[in-house]
């Protein structure tokens, strides 16, 4: 350790970091913009945010695997240009080499540095003991359970004696109990200083996990990604997930993550842009959520953490559901609370047939892309259109993958609402058959009015 530590002996210091991905002949998509971040010695920091908010990209920039397009990325005051000796990473999918034994996997980094064999073996065996894999040195990854494989991942990282340990959703591929055990073990090693690591930074999708482990929680917004909020967690360890202080912090985080951009009261909301990144949520799940709200809570109003507990869904899925319900105009989300709107109450109390009608109505009124597709199909003489046509339009706003995903999502909703049909083999969208017949008989109707300004404004992609 240094005798003189400069005022902020920061391990990691990011200033104004910017990252944009450029598609071959399309415009750039900015993933990170103006990110400022510091990691000091002795702290655990977690990054939370919705999918696509650039958290993993940021982690990889710090790891040296990706280069930032702007801003400064410093490790101990030196610029990071590639993977650095003092930084190690643990992966969500474990990333073990299947043809190497546990011991060989752990020795991987040491071997790459040409550390002599006997020293390698000594250090590896020691870490294997500490991490709790004693006796399994000669096992192959295929013989191990998920939790044990991640322990190998940890051992591989810790044997390098890194200053900074980066973790990319390290526990999300594990079942709840194993994840808890592993988290506890890691915290124990950290607190008892059994590992020389000085700082830990991890990305998580699980709010409770983040609050259990970290000293600071950073919440990211998406499109472009930047630090939306920073929540310090000053609770003493071991942290009780049922304690009021814990719950208060969790509540606050939920509220921030579901917060909508403010708009002046009374201004009409703009309709959604065509390229709005629709959330992933199936109609059946949205229905299930509304029913739960109506049945389990008074007046269909609930605190988001309470709803999360009822539904038992991973946080990310829940956020997508809430967004979907909000976009369609069935629920409102404000200040960490969910409430069923009158339309939602009517939906829950209707019969199945009526529900479909309502869903279709809301879909066409609130989701511009659905309206657009429907209008094009109405206008065309044979009431058919290839999906590529819409894909190309979406590609003006989004990357190719994202465009496909959004189109798939709107097709999913459209089919459920029976406002159009889709043939997977030919890739054509068409009006449902009974409606086509009706159109043959009646003269073509004038194009439907533009969607009413009842949808919320949302930043377009």
């Amino acid at each position, binding site marked *: 350790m240094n005798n003189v530590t400069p005022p902020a002996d920061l391990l990691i210091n990011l200033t104004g970091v910017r990252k944009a991905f450029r598609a071959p002949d399309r415009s750039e998509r900015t993933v990170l913009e103006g990110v400022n971040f510091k990691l000091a010695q002795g702290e655990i920091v977690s990054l939370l945010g919705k999918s696509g908010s650039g958290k993993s990209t940021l982690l990889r920039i710090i790891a040296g695997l990706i280069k930032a397009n702007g801003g400064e990325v410093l490790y101990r005051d030196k610029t990071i240009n590639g993977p650095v000796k003092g930084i190690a990473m643990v992966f969500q999918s474990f990333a073990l080499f*299947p043809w190497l034994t546990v011991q060989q996997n752990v020795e991987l*980094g040491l071997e790459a540095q*040409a550390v002599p064999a006997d020293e390698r073996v000594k250090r590896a065996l020691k870490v294997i003991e500490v991490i709790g894999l004693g006796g399994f040195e000669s096992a192959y990854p295929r013989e191990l359970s998920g939790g044990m494989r991640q322990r190998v991942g940890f051992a591989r990282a810790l044997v390098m004696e890194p200053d900074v340990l980066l973790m990319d959703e390290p526990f999300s591929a594990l079942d709840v109990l194993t994840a808890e055990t592993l988290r506890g073990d890691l915290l124990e090693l950290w607190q008892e200083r059994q590992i020389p690591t000085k700082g830990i930074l991890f990305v998580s999708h699980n709010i409770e996990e983040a609050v259990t482990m970290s000293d600071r929680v950073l919440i990211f917004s998406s499109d472009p990604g930047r630090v939306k909020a920073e929540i310090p967690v000053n609770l003493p360890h071991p942290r009780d997930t049922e304690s009021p202080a814990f719950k208060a912090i969790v509540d606050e985080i939920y509220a921030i993550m579901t917060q909508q951009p403010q708009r002046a009261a009374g201004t009409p909301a703009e309709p959604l842009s065509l390229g709005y990144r629709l959330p992933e949520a199936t109609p059946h799940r949205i229905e299930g959520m509304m029913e739960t709200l109506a049945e389990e809570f008074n007046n269909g109003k609930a605190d988001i953490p309470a709803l999360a507990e009822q539904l038992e869904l991973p946080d990310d899925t829940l956020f997508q559901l809430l967004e979907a319900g909000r976009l369609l105009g069935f629920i409102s989300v404000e200040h960490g609370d969910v409430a069923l709107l009158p339309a939602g109450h009517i939906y829950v109390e209707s019969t199945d047939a009526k529900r479909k009608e309502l869903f279709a109505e809301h879909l066409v009124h609130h989701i511009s892309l659905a309206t657009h597709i429907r209008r094009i199909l109405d206008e065309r003489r044979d009431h058919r259109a290839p999906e590529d046509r819409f894909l190309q339009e979406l590609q003006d706003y989004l990357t190719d993958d994202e465009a496909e995903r959004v189109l798939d999502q709107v097709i999913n909703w459209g089919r459920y609402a029976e406002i159009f049909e889709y043939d997977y083999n030919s890739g054509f969208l068409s009006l449902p058959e009974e409606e086509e017949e009706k159109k043959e008989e009646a003269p073509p109707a004038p194009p439907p009015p533009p969607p009413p300004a009842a949808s919320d404004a949302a930043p377009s992609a």
Partner: protein
Amino acid sequence: MRQNFIPPTINFNPNLRPNAWDLAALPLVLGILWLLAFGGMQMSTPYNIGDALTVSSDPLDLPYYLLRSFLRMAAGLAASLTFSIVYATLAAKSKYAEKILIPILDVLQSIPILGFLSITVTGFIALFPGNLMGVECAAIFAIFTSQAWNMTFSLYQSLRTIPHDLNEAAAMYRLSAWQKFWRLELPFATPPLIWNMMMSVSGGWFFVVASEAITVSGQTIMLPGIGSYISRAITDKNLAGIGWAITAMLVGILIYDQLFFRPLVAWADKFKFESIPGEELPTSWLLTYMQRTKLMRHIGAAPGLLWEISLPLFRRRHDGLGRPVHKARTLPWFDKAWNAFLALIAAYALLRLADFLKTSIGWEEVLHVFLLGLATAARVLILIAIASLIWVPIGVWIGLRPKLAQTVQPIAQFMAAFPANLMFPVAVILIQHFNASVEIWTSPLMILGTQWYILFNVIAGAMAIPTDMKDVGGNFGLKGWVRWKRLILPSVFSSYVTGAITASGGSWNASIVSEMVSWGDTTLMATGVGAYIADATAKGDFPRIWLGCCMLSMFVILFNRLLWRRLYRLAEERWRID
């Protein structure tokens, strides 16, 4: 013993649409072939190797001949392995190299191997005057070409599809390129590579047999080996000799299977990336024995020592904190210049070829050969259709009965490995005896060796139908044609296509030796491009050999693109069991 032998990769260029480079590659490769042929043509006579080499017809010499054939196969394999590692690594790592290397490989895969032989043998002989080495090299080269392209493609595809997170881990722990290759890339590529190696070797016996007795320019040069033994037996009308040879071949393949194939596949299982717990693992008594003996373990330690020594020499010395490594930004004009350069060479090759065709051979003959090609193509299609009609139902029937499948699968693989050309003399005798039509009855010879690929692939496909799907079929009382249409055919479709592609490719190759067959002094010739090539080879007429090979290659390429790849893509998209 692992029953599921569906090959892990189909060796196709991942881009389905032909791009500019495929068009460029064709004239380039054909041009190079022409150069070789032209060079051969310049030799006045192939070098005479003193006394014509006599091959004995004594059955007791067979073990020795078997050994020589095996050695040739081993040499070809070693050369293929080296070639594929170098070529595939280059293509995978360099964008510029990839642009031209992969289309060239594509074309090479389609060229008939025996066609290679005809063209290159005189060239090789000239390299080693006064020596049998030249001819040996030609034979080994033929074997090499039967294996190398498959293996290279497999390796190339593996290198390009390494799981992203493993790549990141290798980067995080700062493995150098050398370390990464031996610790990550090559092990990852090993299972499909070994599979392709074994399949190639199985198919290779055919070429070993075919290439040991080479008739060039009216002279027959024979290398000691099973193929030449048979060739001698054919000219002597020695039926007993044929019988002995077939027996020896059977024993030989059995030995190769137990001592080489199975242990290697069992060992390669260690590198498999995803393993399903409870899946039956391949075993080999030889491998288990070797892993238990102390001696073997000591021998196994030697590579480890070499590795340790190499580590400090090839490690990454600089940290990410050093000066930023400025990746030489590719100058935009370099890209265009490279493209233009390749296009120029291709165009030049095309012009020269057209000119050559016009002067040496004449367009009429080219048309004639084209029609011959159509004839052979018709044969291949009809035969594959017939073989499918026969073997698909049988394959499915066997595949749905696991116990039966376990016994039959190895037999089918064995039949696929057995060189069918050993059976050709029998066919000639029969045709002569019954005075049958040559056109029709030489055709089955083409498919004789390759139909087994359809069989064992369909068996594997039927075995892989998920049990719950079969249960649903039973539950809903699915019977007869409906069951076939809805359940079975879609499930086995992609395995069938895999088998059919291999069978079709093999049949094209076989056409060269099966459209012109002989017994004693009788030679039967059918109408087709294979016969054309074989005839031209016997006469030493290089321009025509070359023309025939080109035509054959183009047909194969067309077939592949228009028929097989589309079917495969269809199988992948519509009928994949996810």
